[in-house]
């Protein structure tokens, strides 16, 4: 499998729908003086929100090789790119960024065919309208991962064949890993 090809295709995907260069450069100058694709600043606080884009990160420090942030409606295309490259879906994680009023869905992909290559794809969605398309057409294994993320965060995966509670009781009505969940 061609790592560089994958990175290039993800870059192309992530940059679709991004604002034109001058605006990006202006925003980036305010945030941090790093590359035009958008980068998370290395300083601790206050971090500017990360722009969509692809970063090649340090595997020994972070555990992944490539970290891509895309828009919510691009996750299916990202999954298709990685599926064609022969990768497998390891996990789908939800994260509740209550201070930013956003939920983040993080997809972990890895390559099991030989050399070690891990890609993580993220997408942010607004907290009050938590909808994101399902990737279970591309990776059937995502069926259960998305149901679990729905259990814990209430994220609605559009097009999912069976979006019901998986780990919590069927008659449950709360989503426990949201940061404003107070117990029951």
């Amino acid at each position, binding site marked *: 499998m061609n790592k560089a090809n994958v990175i290039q295709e993800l870059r192309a995907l992530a940059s679709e729908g991004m604002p034109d260069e001058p605006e990006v450069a202006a925003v980036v100058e305010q945030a941090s003086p790093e590359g035009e694709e958008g980068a998370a600043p290395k300083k601790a606080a206050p971090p500017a929100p990360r722009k969509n884009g692809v970063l090649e990160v340090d595997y020994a420090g972070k555990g992944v090789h490539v970290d891509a942030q895309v828009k919510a409606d691009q996750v299916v295309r990202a999954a298709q790119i990685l599926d064609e490259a022969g990768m497998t879906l390891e996990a789908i994680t939800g994260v509740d960024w209550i201070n930013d009023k956003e939920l983040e869905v993080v997809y972990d992909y890895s390559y099991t065919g030989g050399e070690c290559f891990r890609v993580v794809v993220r997408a942010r969605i607004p907290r009050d309208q938590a909808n994101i398309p399902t990737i279970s057409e591309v990776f059937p294994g995502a069926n259960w991962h998305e149901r679990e993320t729905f259990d814990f965060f209430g994220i609605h995966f559009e097009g999912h064949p069976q979006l019901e509670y998986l780990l*919590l*009781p069927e008659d449950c009505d*709360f989503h*426990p890993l949201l940061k404003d*969940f107070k*117990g*029951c």
Partner: protein
Amino acid sequence: MGSESIPSSIIQLSTVDKVLELGRANSLWPMTFGLACCAIEMMAAGASRFDLSRFGAEVFRPSPRQCDVMIVAGTISKKMFPAVKTLYDQMPEPKWVIAMGNCAISGGPFKFDGQYGIIEGADTFLPVDVYIPGCPPRPEALIEGILELEEKITGNRRWPRVESGLSQP
């Protein structure tokens, strides 16, 4: 300890009752009800080294209709709770319950403020006869629990209790 009142029994035959109690105590048939980690120690207690068969209790029956004692081994989650209650109700009398492990006693390590998923102890909805603490308790502890239950049923302890010999402070 050891007296078992059977209020609905019209006929009380004292010596025959004693023989029946001895029979029940020495052949307790547990139900295979391992929920979580304690189930493995229950299996180990029934396996070759610790051998519950010496005490007549090796016949783990899957069906509640054929069991005397339900060993609740593991955490009872709120989703599982109706199943546990149903299984207990399906067991014919006389029946006993052993709560094995910290989770079955009080929720164990999974009891914390804001928890939403587990029942904090089997004794919130079942009449527990013997509590076996541990996380997980050793198979010897389960055997001790069975011996305690036998003592509860018959009034006599089959195996003399071995004191540790440590002097009291």
